[in-house]
């Protein structure tokens, strides 16, 4: 294999606790000593010593409990977060698939939102226009495309979101639990589209709680537990271990 397109080298990420600050200037000044101390010391560690590589065209699944650090990992890849220590290397245009309706504006129509989101994701308006028909067709929204999206159901929002991002020639695709909504037919269509991407060597990071889909799509899976990589390997082995591991506390 050639050189990786995503590389994490002993990456740690901790967040300062900003609650004393975001409460406002007034509260900051009234609690100045505590506020400064909390800014300096109180850190929340989201990721500890994470190292992994992703090759071009590889599909990497990321599983783990809520709050384990999966979304932070995606944030680092997308470049919206900076690592506290270690090095994050990403080569290529990153297309994050956002959660329900994010990056859309409720008052604009589906069509207007396609342009808004497409340009925010790094394409020019002309490039979005070229793909417009394809996007609308894939979304199955029909006449709803010219309605403001506040009238959309959650399934329709997901369909629009998936259609936009998947039609934009992604190089690195980040998918964060987006397939949980939408009906069975559309989920199948999404999985089919992702397998299509896989064959055309699009690199994907896939965060999901749906172990079946993880097994279906991924080449390799990382299990993040307590902000560290607990296990990394072939999908079947890791998902099995994860399922057993998370069932244990419940069994008597």
């Amino acid at each position, binding site marked *: 294999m050639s050189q990786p397109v995503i590389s994490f080298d002993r990456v740690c990420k901790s967040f300062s606790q900003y609650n004393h*600050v975001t409460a406002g200037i007034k*509260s900051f000044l009234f609690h100045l000593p505590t506020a400064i101390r909390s800014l300096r010391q109180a850190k929340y560690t989201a990721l500890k010593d994470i190292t992994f590589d992703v090759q071009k065209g590889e599909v990497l699944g990321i599983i783990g409990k809520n709050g384990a650090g999966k979304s932070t990992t995606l*944030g680092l890849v997308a470049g919206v977060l900076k690592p506290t220590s270690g090095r994050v290397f990403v080569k290529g245009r990153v297309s994050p698939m956002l959660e329900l309706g994010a990056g859309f504006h409720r008052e*604009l129509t589906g069509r207007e939102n396609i342009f808004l989101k497409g*340009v925010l994701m790094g394409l020019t308006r002309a490039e979005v226009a070229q793909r417009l028909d394809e996007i609308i067709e894939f979304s199955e929204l029909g006449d709803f495309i010219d309605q403001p999206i506040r009238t959309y159901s959650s399934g329709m929002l997901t369909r629009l979101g998936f259609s936009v991002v998947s039609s934009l020639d992604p190089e690195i695709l980040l998918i964060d639990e987006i397939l949980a909504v939408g009906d069975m037919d559309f989920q199948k269509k999404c999985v089919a589209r992702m397998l299509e991407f896989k064959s055309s060597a699009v690199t994907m990071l896939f965060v999901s709680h749906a172990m079946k889909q993880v097994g279906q799509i991924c080449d390799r899976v990382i299990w993040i537990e307590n902000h560290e990589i607990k296990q990394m390997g072939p999908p079947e082995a890791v998902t099995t271990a994860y399922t057993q591991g998370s069932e244990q506390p419940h069994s008597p």
Partner: protein
Amino acid sequence: MQKVPWRPVLDRRVQHFLDLIYVATEKDLKVRYKSSFLGYLWSIAHPLSLALVFYFAFKMIMKIKLEAYALFLITGLFPWQWLSNSVTYSTGVFLSNSSLIKKVNFPRSVLVFALVLQDMIHFAFAVPVIVLFKFVYGHPFHISWLYGLPLLLIVQFGLAFGIALMLASANLFFRDLERLTVILMTLLFYMTPVFYPEHLVPSHYRPFIVLNPMAPLIISWRNVLFTGNVNVTYLLASVGYSALAVLVGHKTYKRLSWKFAEVL
């Protein structure tokens, strides 16, 4: 999937940046006013109603001795409205786009740029109203508009953008900044010669006018729009404040922008 026709790299990046500003501004305009004609009326309704109130209070009751006071009022109120809208709304710009900022890596300052641009467009559409008032009062038009208006547009854009960028960034960390901003803007409104001429300010206070970053700009607008004269001192001061605002806004943004996704 179709391939994009090949274009020079720089060209595409510039094109994309322009498109970013375009879609963000278009979004703001569409969201704020759903229908275009009513939207236009709204954009001038507020400053006009303010003008009406001040006309009533100062011309009809206090009998201020200024000719063409209605024209005098709107030549100050229209630019002020733009400045005030951009600054007041700026505090919420990043907050209201939090889901985007947390996921997508794009130049966030574009959101602020679009906000100020959109207010500037509203202002530009209000200029014909000033022209109309000039006709009504039989005021002459001035050559100085040719260079004065574009120059002041740029200067005010810089001032509004710089302050807005600073406030939008800082408000993510100190969330009560937006309340403070509203109060400060109200105070500044009365301390800026918007509805009174600067020569009515008692002479021993007059040197302090320049300390208010908004004042030299509003005075310059008034000079160009109302009398057609340009006071070089005030003009230079407004250019200076504009440049300073852009500098401070940019520094604040650079310093804080990488943490935006963490605090949202």
